[in-house]
């Protein structure tokens, strides 16, 4: 049975491949899509692994899902960007220590034709109100990510319920990641709220352009949170703590600040954060 022989050989090979991958110490970092899709982590983590021998397995999930994954005990630490959800995570006893490691900002992007006339503004809430007023298409993540949470806070500040306002046909909840939202907005000529890291490294912008930026409410802070050993004794505390220490160290902070795409800096070290 040559067929059976081939199957056995291939199965053995795959077991071998799995074994070699599991040899070194590894921790699972549940993170937002922006730090992974922008390739920031792929850029900075190899140096940490080289120095410590600890490999970091990154799950790019969006803040809501990342926190849920960690709460189930399936990650060793999280890297997220939704202060309200993070406070709840700590208050619930899942997270212990929380530390800011980087920041950048959110931006409102939209079609160059700008039917709602929001270009050049600095007030994100006013821009949202103008978009709703004009009934111009707007793409919402709808996935409980950090970006989605901020978007909903901005609608509340504008005192608009986008789902009901103006029949709601202009407001498209796609239930997807930042990249999917940008792809959809590019195809529809719609507005959307984006984090700058994903935007700068995104490859399919077409007619989309940055229209509103510079609002203090659009600050985007990235925090790492270690799990509380009382609730999550199975989490690998020691290597996770070393990763947090390295990210917050002068070397880690410099690595974050040095990462550029097409000459533009995507993330700022938290040391120079506007408080």
């Amino acid at each position: 049975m040559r067929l059976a022989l081939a199957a056995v050989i291939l199965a053995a090979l795959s077991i071998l491949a799995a074994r070699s991958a599991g040899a070194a110490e590894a921790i699972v970092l549940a993170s937002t899509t922006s730090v992974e899709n922008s390739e920031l982590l792929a850029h900075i983590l190899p140096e940490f692994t080289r120095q410590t021998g600890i490999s970091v397995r990154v799950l790019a999930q969006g803040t809501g899902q990342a926190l849920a994954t960690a709460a189930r005990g399936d990650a060793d630490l999280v890297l997220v960007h939704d202060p309200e959800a993070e406070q709840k995570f700590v208050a619930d006893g899942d997270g212990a220590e929380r530390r800011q490691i980087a920041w950048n900002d959110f931006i409102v992007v939209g079609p160059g034709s700008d039917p709602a006339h929001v270009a050049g503004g600095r007030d994100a809430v006013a821009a949202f109100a103008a978009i709703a007023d004009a009934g111009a298409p707007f793409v919402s993540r709808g996935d409980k990510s950090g970006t989605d949470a901020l978007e909903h806070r901005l609608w509340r500040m504008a005192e608009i319920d986008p789902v009901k306002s103006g029949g709601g046909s202009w407001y498209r909840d796609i239930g997807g990641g930042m990249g999917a939202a940008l792809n959809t907005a590019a195809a529809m000529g719609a507005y959307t709220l984006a984090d700058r890291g994903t935007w700068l490294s995104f490859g399919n912008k077409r007619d989309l352009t940055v229209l509103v930026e510079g609002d203090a409410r659009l600050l985007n802070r990235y925090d790492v949170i270690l799990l509380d050993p009382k609730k999550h004794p199975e989490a690998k505390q020691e290597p996770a703590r070393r990763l947090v220490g390295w990210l917050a160290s002068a070397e880690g902070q410099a690595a974050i600040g040095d990462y550029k795409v097409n000459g533009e800096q995507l993330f700022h070290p938290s040391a120079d954060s506007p408080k």
Partner: protein
Amino acid sequence: MDDWAFWGVPDVRALSRIIALSLAVSVSATALATLFGAPLGAVLAVYRFPGRHILVVMFNALLGLPPVVVGLALYLLLSRSGPLGSLSLLFSPGAMVLVQTVLALPIVTALMHNASVDLWAEFGGALQVDGATRPVAIMHLLAIARRRLLTAVLAGFGRTISEVGAILIVGGNIAGYTRTMTTTIVLETSKGNLSMALGLGFVLIGISIAVSATIFALGSAEEQ
């Protein structure tokens, strides 16, 4: 490697790892599904026992098993707060093999059952006249059904190599560890690198054709 610059792939090593993992996971899952599914299909055709029809209907219904549902169910089982959490299998290639085995098993079983029903009607009497016990008869049946087994194996492989929803949930698409061809295509699409995503799609189709051709050639050689 200038060839790859065209696709925007910066790292050939990373790409070969992705391809190797895709193949390792789907081939292992197909092999496991065949190991259990082929005899099971034959048994369902040969033996008469209560509940047999229900099992046959079930395996045929499971052909339409939604991968994301299987992925989610296995995620909950393998999660550290789930019943099998102590295995620490979640977000590993092992979990991906497991979920794809579950997805391929009904395909192999249902196709083998179908083939075995026909062949048992034709040769069953002869096989038993020779005095063979049913387990021995099943071995002979599987040998006679080699060609159709091949179709079942290829169908199982086709499902596993192209699947993305379930392995994304239980594997986590971790770079260098659980990232496969299909999850890379999803990732690159979300990054707006559409031409690279499409290029990887063609590579996937090419590999799929090559593997199918190899299995088919092995099977045909067996026939002679």
